[in-house]
């Protein structure tokens, strides 16, 4: 095939201006072929060269043999949103080769495995063949690892092409293989020899080049699910009940990995936590409710279908006032939808989850450091409010690798909320009275006891049926209304303790933008681009529901607000409408759901289009 590759881009490198630290590379492979390690190695290496980098894995919902794309964006300014075009592709999958070419910018680079026999359709690209088979042949690895090793070929050639430091690569490999010498060396061997082959046989004709920077110093790199798990561990999580589901599984799996490291006594082997794989999400939710009621910090992680199954139990938790933490790592719905693609499509379901009038706290992390932070904070909020807290992450955040600030040790002591042990109860009873559902402090939140409390007055009968302030069964109309109204009051208390939004303002902003979670990178980048075109914007990133006062302030200050989100119906906007009817006409819908993270380009174009229509 090499011969049939067009080579019309005849300018040499010198002819064109180099593009340094600002391009995107997509690895086009099939899943199950072990390319993840190779891709991670490239990404980590660039990161360690001090250059800002981000990775997006677009993978199919199966295990082996289908097309998978991994895009690494290198951006000296630190922009990490998804880009719509590639500058470089590493083409390993014949099945998608021709299609993959379409996504390249003119002058883009095609590093292709010489297994690929199709004749490319574009002649404005630069083609480099990679003799993958040949270069991986010599290596001494077990046959089942052969494919795996083959991927190291492209690492080596790419390293030569864009200038990744080989020593940094070795460092990244050492990290990957936890320092185990054999795999590090055999992989590095292939990389090195491929690098050398490239140096000898290829002539660089493209313009993409890495140069070391200092922009990632002190940063960490991880995925949101791992960060969430670690945060939860620092939050003192005690019971994890879960049921596998993409893209949530790796969160409990990270708990399974790290809990023994951090929460198991090195000497006695005693563990201060329990992880239970439930038989389904209803059971997982039931375990949460039981454990939360029992005074444990209990959490689960799930995604759409599991969330829907938990509806009934979450309504019980709301009404029986049981704290629990649930991570909803959102994927594309409705129904089974696209299990391996990202979305922000469960907001309204959660907002109105379970029959009857309910309310929950939702938290919206947008970065790995927020995953860590909300990982522990969610427990404080849940126990303080005696209410389920649902942390709305998504596949993009949960499963992709992100640069981030190092995790910060919790800056507050744990808030175990209004829990009464034997003596506390004794004192309370001496001072006056205690009723499980008595709102003594007028903040909507009663005091609770938990099983194991041996004070003979501590026990009460928890239930999902009508009850009075003393947890006695009641069908009295006034009692029902009073208790449910009091529970409703918790929302006001919640507003005071949930994370406040993050606001970014510009001088002379023409309008506002409101968004949540992983819409963030695209918005930040789009704002910079708009700014370049002379359009200043303000931006508020909501971090929790119920909304805090800052949200209203922001809305009040802006005549026009784009609500940017990854779903069809504009769910965040719907919730804003319900909460701020007085500003209803300010909210512009900017919602889409196609399974991909937003790009800055779409955000910018869509805003410009709507702005144009408006005027």
């Amino acid at each position, binding site marked *: 095939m090499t011969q049939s590759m067009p080579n019309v881009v005849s300018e040499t490198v010198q002819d064109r201006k180099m593009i340094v630290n600002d391009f995107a590379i997509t690895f086009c492979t099939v899943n199950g072929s072990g390319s993840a390690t190779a891709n991670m190695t490239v990404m980590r290496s660039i990161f360690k060269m001090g250059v800002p980098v981000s990775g997006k894995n677009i993978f199919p919902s199966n295990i082996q043999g289908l097309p998978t794309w991994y895009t690494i964006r290198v951006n000296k300014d630190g922009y990490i949103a998804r880009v719509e075009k590639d500058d470089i592709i590493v083409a390993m999958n014949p099945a998608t080769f021709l299609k993959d070419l379409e996504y390249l910018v003119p002058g883009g680079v095609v590093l292709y495995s010489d297994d690929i026999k199709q004749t490319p359709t574009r002649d404005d690209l630069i083609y480099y063949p990679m003799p993958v088979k040949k270069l991986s042949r010599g290596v001494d690895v077990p046959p089942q690892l052969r494919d795996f090793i083959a991927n190291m070929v492209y690492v080596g050639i790419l390293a030569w092409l864009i200038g990744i430091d080989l020593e940094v690569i070795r460092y990244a490999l050492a990290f990957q293989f936890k320092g185990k010498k054999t795999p590090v060396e055999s992989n590095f061997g292939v990389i090195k020899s491929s690098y050398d082959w490239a140096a000898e046989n290829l002539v660089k004709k493209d313009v993409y080049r890495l140069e070391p920077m200092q922009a990632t110093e002190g940063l960490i790199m991880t995925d949101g699910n791992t960060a969430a798990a670690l945060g939860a561990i620092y939050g003192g999580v005690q019971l994890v009940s879960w049921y596998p589901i993409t893209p949530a599984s790796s969160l409990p799996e990270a708990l399974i990995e*790290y809990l023994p490291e951090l929460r198991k006594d090195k000497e006695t082997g005693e563990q201060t936590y329990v992880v239970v794989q439930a038989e389904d999400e209803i059971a997982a939710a*039931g375990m949460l409710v039981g454990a939360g009621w*029992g005074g444990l910090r209990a959490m689960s992680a799930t995604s759409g279908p599991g969330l829907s199954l938990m509806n009934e139990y979450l309504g019980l938790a709301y009404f029986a006032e049981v704290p629990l933490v649930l991570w909803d790592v959102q994927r594309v719905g409705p129904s089974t939808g696209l299990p391996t693609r990202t979305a922000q499509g469960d907001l309204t379901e959660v907002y109105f989850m379970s029959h009857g009038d309910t309310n929950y706290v939702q938290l919206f992390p947008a970065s790995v450091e927020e995953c860590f932070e909300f990982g522990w904070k969610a427990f404080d909020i849940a126990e303080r409010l005696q209410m389920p807290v649902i942390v709305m992450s998504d596949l993009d955040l949960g499963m992709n690798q992100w640069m981030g600030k*190092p*995790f910060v040790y919790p800056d507050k002591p744990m808030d175990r909320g209004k829990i009464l042990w034997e003596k506390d109860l004794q004192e309370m009873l001496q001072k006056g009275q205690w009723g499980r559902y008595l709102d003594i402090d007028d903040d909507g939140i009663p005091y609770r006891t938990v*099983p194991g409390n041996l004070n003979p007055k501590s026990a009460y009968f928890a239930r*999902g049926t009508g009850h009075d302030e003393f947890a006695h069964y009641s069908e009295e109309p006034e009692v029902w209304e009073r208790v449910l109204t009091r529970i409703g009051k918790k929302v006001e208390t919640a507003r005071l303790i949930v994370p406040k939004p993050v606001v970014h303002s510009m001088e002379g902003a023409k309008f506002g933008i409101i968004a949540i979670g992983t819409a963030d990178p695209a918005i930040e980048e789009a704002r910079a681009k708009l700014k370049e075109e002379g359009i200043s914007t303000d931006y508020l990133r909501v971090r929790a529901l119920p909304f805090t006062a800052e949200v209203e302030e922001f809305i009040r200050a802006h005549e026009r607000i784009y609500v940017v989100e990854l779903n069809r119906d504009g769910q965040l906007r719907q919730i804003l409408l319900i909460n701020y009817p007085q500003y209803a006409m300010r909210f512009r819908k900017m919602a889409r759901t196609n399974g991909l993270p937003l790009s800055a380009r779409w955000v910018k174009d869509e805003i410009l289009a709507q702005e144009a229509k408006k005027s």
Partner: protein
Amino acid sequence: MTDSQSASTQGTNLIGLTRADYRGLPSTLCQGCGHNAISNQIVAAMYELNIIPEKVVKFSGIGCSSKSPAYFLNRSFTFNGLHGRMPSLALGALFADTSLHGLGVSGDGDTASIGIGQFKHLIRRNVPMVYIVENNGVYGLTKGQFSATAEKGLTLKHEGTNIFLPVDICLEALASNATFVARSFAGDPKQVKELLKAAISHRGIAVLDLISPCVTFNNKDDTIHSYVFGKEHEVRLHDLIFTPARDMLTVEDFEEGTARDVELYDGSVITLHKLEKDYDPTDRQAAFRVLEEAREKRELLTGLIYANPDEPSLFDQYKLPEKPLNRLTEAELRPAKETIAEVNSWMFS
């Protein structure tokens, strides 16, 4: 006479509590409901076992049966949860303090219809608790529909005739590797009480399938869940007496060869007094067989059907501190400040 019995005659038990300390609110179930009879035996068993009421946690689903935890053990924490989903609730809660006695009360609809999945997975995990099914073959609280334990051919007022074979709670428990399986009858209070005591003392899950007539919706003399049928067709596998560990000296003597003992993990003993035939409740195959035979003969077979006293419970599978999890402090739960640097180093920092 055992200690506990002697204590009871004095109005308080060994820990100085009266029967009243084990009671609950007045029942709002129908008069004559089998569930009330069972509540009474729970009170008696707990009293006689000298259990601190605060050391018991009760759970239930939804149904008349599931309401009954309100009618005993007022001084124990209780969670009356969702229909068919009590097992997961109990599992989560019991981890909070593994020194507590878990006591679940469910109905046949709650367990065998909507709840069969959670029921079986609870058993599979050998969660240490007593799981009572107050089995009346019908949905009481929703006014008389078929439950999954209704006999084939049963006719109910608004529902027509049941066309399905019943779920056999004991057989299901066995199939799920339950470590303690018994069946009894609300009309046989003494046996219910002894089985309850044994169940409470068992190391893992103890499933009690208690036939408990619904006098309002399913008590016709010829239906298998009625009082009359039970009285007429009960066949006891054995007479059984439970002796707590500390009462070992007082174990009643049976004539050689007429009794067999099952020693539970805590050292207490169930003495099984042979009736028609000798029956070995540690033989799983035999358990399958007698259940099958009873079904064919349309007998209400009662007694300890199967026990495997030593199988580790779910809690035995985790190495938990002695202090209950729910009493652990911030210092015990939150990793020390120093660790954060290491954690960040794991993140390729």
